[in-house]
């Protein structure tokens, strides 16, 4: 590893976000550098998806204080699609079905029309998309199919920062390997290990996906803030034996 610290790709400072009149995030600070993979843990309803939705710019997630800076650009005022073209991609926890728009079209859109037949065939093979390609996206997709479809779109997009919202939930063991393989390909770009510039933020409850993807650090989102951070597997272990409340402030956590 080079001794020089990479410039932060994403910098979130004192972020407060409200949905309707409820404040969900209350001062989140997070820095993700190029090539880093972070994990986001936290109880149901804690605001993990809210954080991701805020980063991608979904309407309805109102920043009342603080800011999100990506590649040196303050994202406030940028539309969802502008953020995507700047290099932010997301795999949704529960993506919506779109009648009349095929998965194949979504992949083409994500790749901005740069995907040739060969690359499409490779995606199809890696993620066993098969008949899903010609189906309306997410329309009647099973849980595992929806996750693979999200992965295919992200792989086509190849964003510099990939946000994964529970990529393994509802996915069987065989498919976790498939999804994990895709995440690895995206984050590590095997052929270009030297570069390793792409970064990831992964929401997970179980950590199963971490058997396939190496993560550098995990954060626990608790009471609207990132309450602690530490080694991903150690933190998950601690949480599963003692719960979130005990974990926050425990000796594993590097308190913030």
């Amino acid at each position, binding site marked *: 590893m080079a001794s020089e610290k990479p410039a932060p790709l994403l910098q979130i400072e004192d972020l407060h976000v409200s949905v309707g009149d409820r404040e969900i995030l209350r001062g989140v600070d997070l820095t993700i550098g190029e090539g880093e993979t972070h994990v986001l843990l936290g109880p149901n309803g804690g605001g993990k998806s809210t954080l991701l939705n805020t980063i*991608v710019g*979904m*309407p309805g997630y109102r920043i009342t204080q603080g800011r999100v800076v990506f590649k040196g650009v303050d994202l406030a005022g940028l*539309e*969802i*699609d502008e953020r*995507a*073209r700047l290099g932010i*991609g*997301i795999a*949704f926890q529960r*993506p*919506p*079905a*779109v*009648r*009349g*728009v*095929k998965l194949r*079209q*979504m992949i083409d*859109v*994500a790749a*901005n029309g740069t995907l040739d037949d060969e690359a499409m065939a490779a995606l199809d093979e890696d993620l066993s998309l098969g008949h899903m390609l010609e189906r*309306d996206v997410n329309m009647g997709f099973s849980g595992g199919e929806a996750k693979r479809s999200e992965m295919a*779109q992200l792989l086509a*997009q190849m964003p510099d920062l990939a946000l994964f919202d529970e990529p393994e939930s509802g996915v069987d063991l065989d498919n976790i390997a498939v999804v994990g393989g895709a995440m690895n390909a995206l984050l590590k770009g095997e052929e270009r290990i030297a570069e390793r510039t792409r970064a990831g933020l992964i929401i997970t409850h179980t950590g199963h996906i971490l058997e396939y993807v190496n993560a550098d650090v995990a954060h626990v989102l608790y009471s609207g803030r990132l309450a602690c951070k530490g080694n991903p597997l150690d933190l998950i272990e601690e949480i599963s034996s003692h719960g979130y409340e005990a974990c926050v402030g425990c000796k594993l956590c590097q308190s913030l």
Partner: protein
Amino acid sequence: MPEPLSPKAQQRLDEIRVAAEAAIDKPAALGPDVDITRFRTVSEQQKIESLESLQKQVKETVIHSGFMADETDRSASYFQMDRTPIYERVQKAFDDAIEITSTEDALRLWPEEMIEKYWWRAVMPDKDKYTALVALHQTEGYFIRVKAGRKVEKPIQACLFVSESNVSQNVHNIIIVEDGAEANVITGCNVHVDVKEGLHAGISEFYVGKGAKLTFTMVHNWAADFSVRPRTGVVVDDDGIYINNYVLLTPVKSIQAFPVAKLVGARSTAVFNSIVYGLKDSYIDLGSESQLIGEGSRSEAVARTVSMDQSTVYSRGRLIGRTNDCKAHLDCRGIVQSPESTQWAIPDLASEGAPGAELSHEAAISPIAAEEIYYLMTRGLPKDEAISMITRGFVNIDIPGLPDVLRKQIDKAIEETSKEAM
């Protein structure tokens, strides 16, 4: 001198006339009433030797309904200008497979057969004043027959063109697809860019033989002050398939049509697909009816409607099960894109003494969901492109036999209208 008609045929013609005379003031069950006495009938026009000799402006107009002056990709053509069939031709390769002529000529050529089997057999002359008008003051129309067993891959094209204002064109069309034959007919009704008011009353009687297949695509390209009253009846024999595609992308004063498919044959099928854009102050009342009579008959109707401006659109669909073993489904969805536009979706199902009939429908009128737009945007697509992609997907129903030029036309309309809706 033509041979005199048999007494039976003559009697039938008399009956048709008497019935029509009695119905000439009878308003239609649906749609605004049109004062048919305000229009004179269309005039005679010069015949032409080649479609290339059509005026440039006419060629450009009809291409919007899929009618090509270059006939390379067509098996046969019929072009009627006002009252005159100015051009009728079958391409060499299909010479022995297709007959194409005006219905009045067909009646002169084969009077006994026409009257016995096809002439006002699928549509009643006294249905309303528009059928009566055509029965009493017919101004030609096309006759197309595809011979038994002949599968004609290249489309047959027909165009009914109106070049004058304040006229009514009263056409009577007949298509016969004999047993085992297949045909793809593209018809366009067009008016000259300068035409203002007018009426198009069009009777269409289609007969699909045993194991035969007819794909009928109609694109309407009307003027904003035109009233349109087509009346269509289709009879489908055993194992026959009728596919009806209808596309309306331009403003029209009023159109009301409700084609009826009589699925009399065992295992016969009817499919109705329609894409309708309600623009300006158009009054559009469209639907279809499938009568499931033959054992094992099937029907499907898919309608997509986008309405804008001050338009009013009715989207109807009627399924009538008359046999135990029949199945049919209606799928009818609309998007209203203007606060001044009104849409009705009216599905209508009946089982007439057919306890085993399976009839179902899905009808919905709702906007594009915002979360779907955002989803596409997260993949890098700007909002307006996301909206047009979803709208295109909404109307982009799988229409078999739709020529590329029409597909592009539809895409263009979606592009324009979704920009307006932003």
